[in-house]
């Protein structure tokens, strides 16, 4: 049992529109799982099913090996993309209320709130009304409310929208810390750089179907094209270039470098090892730059979505 959350071929239709088609995912314990996909792909529907806001038409969802049931709301913390708080309620009262809805007692909630308010240095907000706070400030409160009951599973839908870079970093660090403390995180976003930074696993949903899933590194390995970025210096540029083109598939490269004469992307086939390429290059010229091209999450995203059009 290494997966905290398992969805087994979950389908959901709204009228004639199929929002999810036989989608299965497995979220390993203690990981940060990126749930990716273009707008309208079905991510939010899946998240809502996990939160028991809607029921799947077919398929099942298991949390810690058990089918989802009412009590599981205590084990899940959900920060939805459409978010807000009661505007005319005071910050402290509101946090206490929402924490109690998640099953904390009032004193527990108070202690933990104190910890978080101190940690984020917002103690003086306690008696302010939400409408007196800025959007980013309200988001901080919302984040605290989401994690306060120490759920096993945290679901963040676009958690960084509305934050300035400093606060976004702050929240990112908090998420990582929560993961280190044992929480499992499902993370839905369009911002691929944050996927790159945070996610261990990803699943990509496109047009209601899951089109990709697995460990981010495995996927990257799978998507790499055995291409190497190469920067060379040689007195006899034309000749070297011809010799390389003769032996390998060569594409133009656009990386930044100081003074290389030749900038190339060189693709090698399965049988050739990087060392073979390197020794070939050193025999012909002076190698200044040699890096394997690893596809970014963004590249994978775009490529997969385009392939599945």
């Amino acid at each position, binding site marked *: 049992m290494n997966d905290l959350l398992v969805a087994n071929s979950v389908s959901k239709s709204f009228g004639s529109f199929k929002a999810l088609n036989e989608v299965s995912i497995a979220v390993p314990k203690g990981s940060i799982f990126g749930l990716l996909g273009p707008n309208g792909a079905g991510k939010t529907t899946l998240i809502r099913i996990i939160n028991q806001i809607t029921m799947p038409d077919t398929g099942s969802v298991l949390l810690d090996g058990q089918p989802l049931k*009412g009590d599981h709301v205590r084990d899940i913390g*959900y920060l939805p993309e459409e978010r807000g708080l009661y505007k005319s309620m005071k910050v402290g009262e509101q946090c206490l209320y929402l924490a109690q809805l998640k*099953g904390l007692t009032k004193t527990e909630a108070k202690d933990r709130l104190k910890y978080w308010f101190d940690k984020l240095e917002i103690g003086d907000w306690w008696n302010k009304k939400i409408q007196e706070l800025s959007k980013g400030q309200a988001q901080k409160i919302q984040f605290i409310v989401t994690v306060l009951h120490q759920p096993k599973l945290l679901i963040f839908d676009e958690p960084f929208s509305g934050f300035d870079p400093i606060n976004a970093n702050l929240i990112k660090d908090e998420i990582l810390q929560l993961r280190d403390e044992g929480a499992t995180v499902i993370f839905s976003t369009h911002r691929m750089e944050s996927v790159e930074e945070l996610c261990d696993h990803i699943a990509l949903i496109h047009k209601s179907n899951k089109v990709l899933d697995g460990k981010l590194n495995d996927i990257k390995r799978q998507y790499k094209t055995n291409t190497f970025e190469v920067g060379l210096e040689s007195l006899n540029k034309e000749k070297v270039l011809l010799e390389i083109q003769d032996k390998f598939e060569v594409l133009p490269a656009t990386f930044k470098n100081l003074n290389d004469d030749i900038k190339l992307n060189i693709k090698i086939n399965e049988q050739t090892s990087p060392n073979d390429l390197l020794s070939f290059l050193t025999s012909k010229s002076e190698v200044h730059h040699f890096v394997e091209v690893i596809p970014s999450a963004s590249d994978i995203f775009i490529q997969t979505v385009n392939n599945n059009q």
Partner: protein
Amino acid sequence: MNHLPLIIKREYFTKVKNKSFIVMTFLSPLIMIALIAVVAYLSQLNNEKERTISVLDETGYLKDVFIDSEHTNYTNLNGLSLEDAIVLVKEKEDYGLLYISKTNSLDDVTGHVNFYSEDSPSLSVISGLERQIEKRLKEKKLELDGVSLAQIEASQINIDIAQESFDGEKSSKIDNVVKLAFGGAAGYLLFMFIIIYGNMIMRSVIEEKTSRIIEVIISSVKPIQLMMGKIIGTSLAGITQFVIWVILGAVLMFVVSAIFGIDLAQVQSPQQEMVNQAMQASDPQVMAENLINAISNLPLANLVIAFLFFFIGGYLLYSSLYAAIGAAVDNETDTQQFMLPILMPLMLAVYVGVFTVIEDPHGTVSTVFSFIPLTSPVVMLMRIPFGVPLWQQALSLVLLLASFVFAVWFAAKIYRVGILMYGKKPTYKELFKWLKY
């Protein structure tokens, strides 16, 4: 997990702590009392004015008919000509001149009675005069036919049929009035409560959507608990406000009448006085006795308990319908199209109550409507004073409460589906479709 108490508490305290709620709670009775005091003061001013009606009776038939009363004096102008009388009345600024011109016989008087005045006289004054004249002429005629005044007095018979059921339960005409009044009051109170606080419940249900907290809430509690909590919490806030109104109103009323010496209950206008006099209302003491009798004839314990249950049940049912509207829309402006259909059954209930129940309290129409949940709170309450078997009351109440629970479930269902459709105004057809999701 049961979050109901928590939700009720929040709903209650956010309502009660709301500034506009507090202002309205304390301002409304003040405004009401101020209004009543002004009206009372004005009518008192009016009361202090005495009116004088001059009478010029050339026939002599109407001697001693018109007797001075508290607000009305009569002056006899006999012997003057009509022209002189009119001039005099104008000079004295009397209310008007009643002129009965000379006739040949008693039968001709009908066409010979005139009233002259500066402004057109009030309807109640004229009809009061008419009735007094009619009475005297009738007596005169009978006297002409050889019936003595004593005989006429003696011939006046007042029949009050004593009603008694086969079980030996006594009742009287006035009972029906009391029953009608009771049922009507209950219906009216329910109507008022729903109109004032139904909207509040609806707004409260929309609150989560406008503040966009809905997904957070809905991922923590079941919609049906949220709906139930909102309905109960808001209702309690409404009851709090209502009780404060009643207490504050009573205190203020007392203070105002103590300070200004205006007895609000006993304001009687000259018009009323005239009518009362003309009708020669039956002995007030007998009336009061009948009234007390009538009230004690009512199944009081049953009524009070039934009132509580049906009032609460009816209020909850209608509130849950308001909640369902709130659940179906995104903002308040979209609620208009749904409002009328909700109030219609209630109006129907009041009509059925007034027109059918009083005539035939146990007829088919009354019975059927006293079981239909949307009309039963009013119709059943109107029927109960006439005696309704307990099992019928119980059945009707069970139906009422069951439909309340159903309506809340329905509202919760709409709510759950509604959140998936931000920013779209639902049609009835869509609402029906959502039920099947």
